């Protein structure tokens, strides 16, 4: 691995080839906000709250710090008006789903986001995918997944797998920034877990 020299917010930084901008920044104590990032999981690059500006040989562009590998002599800016504006809008859009999320409210304060500017969306989930990826990558159970795409994308527990795997795990619960995950789990449990005992005309779970 060769050494890479770069600049972050005016500071000269040396790092190892293959590291991301986020890893490099964190290694020298520069904070970049994240939502979909988790040390134990593969970088995902979906929430885009970690957006930073990169100047590579005069070509400027915005990239997600969590997935962008560093390059020799790269110049990174982690905050400026454009970046702050994007983060503000992203936080506002997330708050439209989850207005009470503490993580989001903290970011809202930092970036001056107004939680009421966007029309409320009654999903409570910001689709960071932490739960899905944790279940796939760490637990290797695939009990929760993404469903549909675009505007109608959502997370869903797969009842047959969740009934078997989740009861004694629930490792994804603390990762959720909005607490929607727990609700989704209980809803799936109540409505869709396969039942094994039939009583009369209705059906109940075997406990």
């Amino acid at each position, binding site marked *: 691995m060769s050494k890479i020299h770069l600049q972050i917010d005016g500071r000269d930084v040396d790092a190892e080839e293959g590291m991301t901008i986020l890893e490099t920044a964190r290694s020298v104590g520069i904070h970049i906000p994240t939502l979909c990032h988790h040390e134990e999981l593969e970088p995902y690059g979906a*929430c885009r709250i970690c957006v930073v500006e990169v100047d590579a040989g005069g070509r400027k562009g915005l990239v997600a710090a969590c997935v962008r*590998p560093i390059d020799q002599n790269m110049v990174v800016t982690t905050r400026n008006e*454009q970046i702050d504006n*994007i983060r503000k809008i*992203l936080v506002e859009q997330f708050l439209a789903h989850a207005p009470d999320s503490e993580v989001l409210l903290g970011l809202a304060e930092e970036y001056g986001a107004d939680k009421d500017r966007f029309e409320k969306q009654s999903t409570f989930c910001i689709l960071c995918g932490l739960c899905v990826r944790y279940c796939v990558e760490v637990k290797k159970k695939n009990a929760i997944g993404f469903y549909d795409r675009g*505007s109608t994308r959502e997370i869903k527990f797969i009842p047959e797998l969740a009934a078997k795997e989740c009861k004694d795990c629930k490792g994804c619960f603390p990762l959720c920034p909005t607490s929607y995950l727990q609700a989704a789990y209980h809803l799936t449990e109540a409505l869709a877990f396969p039942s094994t005992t039939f009583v009369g005309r209705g059906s109940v779970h075997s406990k």
Partner: protein
Amino acid sequence: MPRINSPAELEEFRKDIISKRDPNKPCIAVCTGTGCLALGAGKVVTAFKEEIEKQGLDAKIVDIRETGCPGFCERGPIVVIYPDETCYLQVQPDDAEEIISQTIIEKKVIDRLLYVDPSNDVTIARESEIPFYKNQMRHLIGNNIKIDPKSIEDYIAVGGYSALVKALTEETPEQVVQLVKDSNLRGRGGAGFPAGTKWGFAAASKEKKKYVIVNADEGDPGAFMDRALLEGNPFAVLEGLIIGAYAIGANEGYLYVRQEYPLAVENVTLAIKQAEKIGLIGENILGSGFDFKITLHQGAGAFVCGEETALLASLEGKAGEPKPRPPFPAVKGLFGKPTNINNVETWSNIPLILNNGPEYISSIGTENSKGTKIFSLVGKVNNTGLVEVPMGISLRDIIFKIGGGVPGGKKFKAVQTGGPSGGCIPEEHLDIKVDFDELAKVGAIMGSGGMIVMDEDTCMIDVAKYFLKFLAGESCGKCSPCREGITHMLSIMNRISEGKGREGDIEFLEEIAISTQNASLCALGGSAPNPVLSTIRYFRDEYEAHIKDRRCPAYACKELIAYYIDPEKCKACMICKRKCSAEAIVGAKKQIHVIDQEKCTNCGTCYEVCPSGFSAVTRLSGEPVPPPIPEEERTIVGKSK
């Protein structure tokens, strides 16, 4: 068909095919591309076959050839008769008898089936002299009408696979990459990245396993460039791909085509089989020692899979979601191996470069965009179809010279280029040169080549809303600026078109659009705001009319319009009353008709059917509907007929 083991044997095979063909023998070429098939070309072919038999002709006297799309879809089914190149339009099965007896036997042209130039009423017999064709430069689709896409022999007869021979025998892989670089060909899939440079990246990799891929996931509404190439001349795409594989050092290729293109799938599958059979795909191609195999993969209908990293994910069996680049596919592509992906049209250009030299491409076009480009010209334009033009032609020439202008005497309003995430260009920019950079300057994109013409009846809010709705369903939903941005822009556009727009909505839209544009993961999100931004840029007054005056100037947004019957003009003819499917019109003979606004669905039928001599039905927007005239005043008196 024999297996061909060397370039010399291919030449022998070609000579043999040509020697058995008489160029002066009449040949009836019928377009059986998807468009003409839908218009009944299949029945026309059957009618010709039956008629040939009935009139006692045999294969020695006349040939019949089912071809791919020559482009003039508006006038299909299209029949071209060789060697005179007589072009008959809108041919019906009933015309077969006359065409055989008159044109084939008597050598007479049938005037009523010819193109009539609307500007001077002159009939034109030869295909290449019809203005629609005359003003094009048909390097890629020109062969479509000349070959049967199900016959590799037809392709070989017109010089097919000679470019492959040249590459394998006269050029090293590095030289082939250099030729593509020298041609300055830019990728036709949308981004316009220089093809030679892209090839160079994958070629430079030392990895043993590499892949080449044809991106045939054409998903733009109203676009069918790639479909026509794959249906009409799949061989050229494959030849380009084999040459690319040789240049890059790949022994395996994929053709990723949308499953919604059954005829393209059928023709490509057959073209691959035929090429395998004679040894143009497989081991030791033409004795060169180069091996190559192709697998056709059908996509499951996701627009985002046209994005190359999403396409790779889909090919690998994963959800079709884009991945961040770098790493680029040239470094880490399909199954982690170096991969070169180009669009169908890009691959089709490759044989031209080998056969005619790189200047064949580089001598055409503008400074930074070379060669020809195929567009699907659709919407409110007289000559709907597929057009291939040199880069640098003006939009005005495409729409008016080739497309024949806007039908029905309506006024041109805008042209939307570049697919759903393209931009709308108004009249004032019609003289720009069509190339990658000029289109971007006016807020649109080249995209893969969609071109939708709109007239004065088109509401630009409605258009932007339509494309956003498409994108809301087709965004993969992985990254938030794209998913959330499109969702919110769409909901704001919806309220504007419903007359519930708010002061500040335009600025709010712009703000969301810019964040979506700059922060999205892939090009879908990066370009998704274009329909909104370009319509705000050129048609801000329409946005303001919707928001401030609750008025739709094009009378297209149903919530903002009303229909009203002018009691002074109504002759109580009952036509509108009978046609109204909502039964919203009150009236009787000699009773002035009145629209019950509560029941009216604003479908506009009454407006369309009211005789032009009366023109009693009027459209209203942004103003109140006058109260209905009192019932006692509705009787028409004193107007005896």
